[in-house]
């Protein structure tokens, strides 16, 4: 696996709720035409918070093992 995290957004399932934009501690997402888009993947720490909190199963975070740390909010 690469050292960097990568994020898949399923635009067909995204309902534009903006939860990912609000909860990401690193400001990785932005909204474009009511759909979430990755704005800056380099800032992603792989914390998985966006994946856990997207109600629509529209985000998959592929985080390298050492970056992946389980969040507790």
């Amino acid at each position, binding site marked *: 696996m690469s050292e960097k995290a990568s994020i898949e957004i399923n635009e067909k399932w995204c309902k534009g709720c*903006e939860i990912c934009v609000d909860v990401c501690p690193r400001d990785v997402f932005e909204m474009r035409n009511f759909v979430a888009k990755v704005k800056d993947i380099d800032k992603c720490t792989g914390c998985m918070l966006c994946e*856990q909190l997207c*109600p629509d*199963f529209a985000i998959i975070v592929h985080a390298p093992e050492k970056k992946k740390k389980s969040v*507790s909010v």
Partner: protein
Amino acid sequence: MDYLQYLRLDKFPHIWCAGCGDGIALKAILRAVHNIGWEKDNIAMVSGIGCSSRTPGYVDFNTLHTTHGRAIPFATGLKMARPEMNVIVVSGDGDATAIGGNHLIHAARRNIDLTVLIYNNHIYGMTGGQVSPETPMGDFATTAPYGAMENNFDISGLTIAAGASFVARCTVYHANLLGKLIEKALSKKGFSLVEVMSPCPTAYGKINKKGTGNEMILNQKQLAVRVERAKTMSPEELKNKIIIGTIIDRELPEYVNTYEKIISQAQRR
């Protein structure tokens, strides 16, 4: 983890509104199931009617979508007939505490080995926002245009008094903790209940000016207080707060087990 392996993908996107908490709760259930390592075929998910009760339609387990308020009786029958099955009930606050309220307390009293997840959104979501036994006094609903006039049930207090083995509460915002509490509930032998605070922006949020789904979910961060901390706070300080964590975890005789013992006793005679 891969959530999609547990889903009926042809049923997606799901019906829940943008910013509804129910999808976050479903993810927490799937993480719990995954961590325990249960086979999909050894799980049965049962529900009544409501937005929350649509959950079994999306999972690739054995599923039973029943009538409004009656998920627990169906689940009880299923568990008695197939004790090896891991039975999970997903219910709304209307489904579980209004029309199904008596089933809830009696299942807790029997301490039958079911896990009941009550998604509390303070309202009847599916039918457009009628008042529920969980609508806070003074809050608005389509059937409470001057504000709800009744006290709420305290779901945890009710089920603890009735005799449940395990009772917990969590917000969807605290998704990681929610998954862990559901895992504990699923692993518990006996009646286990998790009250899941899941915002309904459409039928409750709008009429009560609570903001959009993302705002309601973010707000849970401010509202939640851990059980341990709540013990050090006064009732005034806890007003309008949501206490999250394990509220009770105790060993009590379990119903299916007792029933099996009676059968073998009777057969020995």
